[in-house]
């Protein structure tokens, strides 16, 4: 039975049927199909929840294989599993309980914040590299970047009031128009990618390759 559902044509048929069930009621007023579509989305969310359990199972299997083969960094796999079990147990005890709070607020959040702070240095470093006027385009980027940076800095408005309208023009006109162009391209790309998926030309999301 599992082999039957692993077949590419079966999986693609399910994808197309699911697409139609969700797509048609979005445009057409068919109450029965609309209700079914909403139910299907709920079912998909529930299945997603169960796949998380399967994924944790696959992590256990992977880490135990690593441990058995003693492959590089196998002990980190074990460490991750211990943390995973610990968090599951703390979660079962309750998210308001002291152990959960300790792990979240004394370990995970501070460590994540430290990593996040490093971003500021990365951004400064890359900006310093990029801000070199080696061509006309680079000079324009440098000029626009400097104006927007100055605008963001405190007291700029008081010292150089002329910068405010220029920076606002750059951010509200240029930046918005460029971002809308990118969104437009992304929207068309996603629809065309959808067509390729539904016609079976793009099957990597099912774990297959095109030639299979």
């Amino acid at each position: 039975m599992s082999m039957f559902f692993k077949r590419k044509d079966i999986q693609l048929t399910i994808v197309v049927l699911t697409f139609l069930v969700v797509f048609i009621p979005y445009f057409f007023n068919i109450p029965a199909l609309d209700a079914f579509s909403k139910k299907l989305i709920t079912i998909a969310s529930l299945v997603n929840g169960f796949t998380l359990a399967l994924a944790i199972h696959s992590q256990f299997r992977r880490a135990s294989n690593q441990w058995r083969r003693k492959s590089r960094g196998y002990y980190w796999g074990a460490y991750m599993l211990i943390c995973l079990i610990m968090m599951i147990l703390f979660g079962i005890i309750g998210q308001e309980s002291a152990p959960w709070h300790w792990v979240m607020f004394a370990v995970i959040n501070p460590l994540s914040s430290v990593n996040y702070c490093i971003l500021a240095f990365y951004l400064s470093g890359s900006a310093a590299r990029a801000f070199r006027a080696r061509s006309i385009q680079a000079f324009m980027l440098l000029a626009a970047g400097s104006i927007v940076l100055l605008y963001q800095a405190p007291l700029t408005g008081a010292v150089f009031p002329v910068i405010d309208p220029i920076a606002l023009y750059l951010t509200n006109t240029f930046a918005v128009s460029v971002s809308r162009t990118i969104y437009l391209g992304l929207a068309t790309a996603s629809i065309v990618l959808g067509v390729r998926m539904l016609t079976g030309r793009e099957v990597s999301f099912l774990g297959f390759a095109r030639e299979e």
Partner: protein
Amino acid sequence: MASVLFEIPGMHSGRLFGLFLEVLIVVLALYYMTREKPPYIRRVAALDAIEEAIGRSTEMGKPVFFSYGIASRGFDLRTLIGISLLSHVARVCARNETQLIVPTGGSEGSYIVRPTVEETVKTAYTLEGKPELFDPDNIPFFSGQQYAYVGGYIGAMQRNPPGAVIACSHASEHMNIAETANAMGALTIMAPSSTGKTAVLATASDYLIFPEEAGAGAAYLSKEPSELASIRVQDILKWMAIALMIIGVIAATSGSDLINRLVST
């Protein structure tokens, strides 16, 4: 929102134009896909650079790092784009016998995506006739937490310096990856998923794949006429959108809201 031009009984109001566009896209895509003559496609430097990057890694004897993002919402569009690119990158790496490392993790959704990714890479190696080169340890799962994953990713790059790093659709950690890759002397190709990150990553990467180009990346790299058709359709639609915008601006300036009402229909 402007009032609609007209309504069709049995259809939700304000969705007709959207349906028309989607049907048009499907018809155009199917038309170009079935045509034997390959359509004209503009060159995308960042996508062309993928093979160059893998070739460079092969010559240097260094691995290629490829990541498809942290999949925070499971199989969303951004993740699917990353996986479709991975499928191609894995095949080229298998062909060149270059080590491909695919760091996974970063969110709860990544637990669900990982098995598919492993299957995609495994299939790519099998199709290239080199299944023995596939090593599941090259698809490490670092953590379900975003920044623990980044720590693992950066650590892996520092222990095993890459020749090339190709990263798609990441969140804020994209910058950490790009800058570390840069510091390691790797050729960096980044595919951001939003406009904000596009500007930031442009300063940190050697090549930048724009969001729309990433979507068609796998088709572009495959060089198959039927696959290239999807890029052709994207270009046609963009020209149509530009034309609609120009007509809309002229109409609005002359006091007509016809285009506004048409797109609201």
